[in-house]
């Protein structure tokens, strides 16, 4: 398409485009509606692992906090100011994976 276009051309382009935007989004609308039926079967099951992960993290934190408290000779409330991020990232991701494996005993 050339660079200089007439107003009539621009009207046609606008009309075609506006219709096309509606068509594309309407198709997505239709498919999302369809999705609801397909996906509704086992919602709860897929959500679960996340919660479990979180709980595992909680345990991990508790263990680390306790260990730290003992080794530094302070009580846990004094220690808990540290974030998980800081603690876990000092160690290697791989080492951490290994540690978690060891602790939980399930491979």
């Amino acid at each position, binding site marked *: 398409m*050339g*660079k200089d276009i007439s107003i009539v051309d621009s009207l046609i382009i606008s009309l075609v485009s*506006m219709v096309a935007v509606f068509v*594309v989004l309407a198709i*997505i609308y239709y*498919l*999302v509606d369809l999705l*609801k039926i397909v*996906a509704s079967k086992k*919602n709860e099951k897929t959500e679960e692992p996340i919660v479990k992960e979180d709980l595992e993290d909680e345990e991990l934190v508790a263990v680390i906090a306790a260990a730290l408290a003992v080794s530094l000779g302070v009580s846990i409330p004094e220690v808990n100011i540290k974030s998980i991020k800081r603690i876990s990232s000092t160690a290697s991701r791989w080492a951490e994976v290994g540690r978690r494996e060891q602790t939980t005993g399930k491979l």
Partner: protein
Amino acid sequence: MVIEIVKGFLQSTGFAAITGGQIIMLLISFGLLYLAIKKGFEPLLLVPIAFGMLLANLPLAGLTAEPVVEIVKDPITGKLVSKTKEFGGLLYYLYQGVELGIYPPLIFLGIGAMTDFGPLIANPSSILLGAAAQLGIFITFIGAIALDFTGPESASIGIIGGANGPAALYLCSKLAPHLLGPIAIAAYSYMALVPIIQPPIMKALTTKEERKVVMKQLRPVSKKEKIIFPIMVTVISTLLIPSAGPLVGVLMFGNLIRECGVVERLSQTIQNELMNIVTIFLGTTIGATAKAETFISGSTLKIIGLGLIAFALGTVGGVLFGKIMCKLTKGKVNPLIGAAGVSAVPMSARVVQKMGQEEDPGNFLLMHAMGPNVAGAIGSAVAAGLLLTFFGG
């Protein structure tokens, strides 16, 4: 010798070289900094844009200098080789990410990773409001043609009405890179001004009863739906409008990374560090394109005027379609949420929430407005793709 050196030195200062236009641009940059810092208008982009503008309009600093590269015959081998005679300035190199179309998709990736499409999936009919609100783009496009802009220029001006920064930058960098400065600044300024531009239009087009409509709570959306959604949207919209692929595709890629739940560390980095680094580079270099010699012109004024019209008409389109949906559903849809279809995530959704609560303090429209809001982001990416199809060849 002494005199020569001292004289040369004095002539080298910027005071001797500064132009009236540059002084105006410096004042504009101060104004933008004031709006960003003091008024809190879109500071994440306006602060870098304004400072880039400041740096680019201080004379002689060379921060935006282009490198000089020549093809010469190697004296030894006799072969042609490429040789850099002068290196470019920092902002020139950082600007390559805009020119080559790299930053806008990366920003879209970050936006995708920060967006929860849940409200849209829960109420998919709201997606049509995100289509209707693109009206402003195309009417403004016609208006720009009427004002004697070329086709590619008009398309780039129209896209301001998409209220979608990266889509505007992407399209403009492909079609009319010489207008990047004014278009980017208009787009982000109006996005910042959404709380001022939209409310009068919304009020004028709706009745008190319509604004009071309470919508029923959204259903919860399963993880599975949220994972399938981005894949589906990518496939469908790229097949339909291939030129929309780079924008919609990366937006949805970011969203999949967010929702799939197994690559949390990638999701965090995209949302934070990658997004922030690109934002700084993008904003600063965009601002630096607004040099006095090109920025201060009649075109810029027209673009700023047309941009405002685009924004207003987008709101009109969304609200009117909202009224139609209100009728069709027999009053189950509050027409105000149509205004959120212009994208400008999340400001326009908040404007809707505020206006709804003004009529009835117990009316919470925010989540319902988020549906059209995120749909608007997809809609304007599709619109950008369409315009690229027509003018990008």
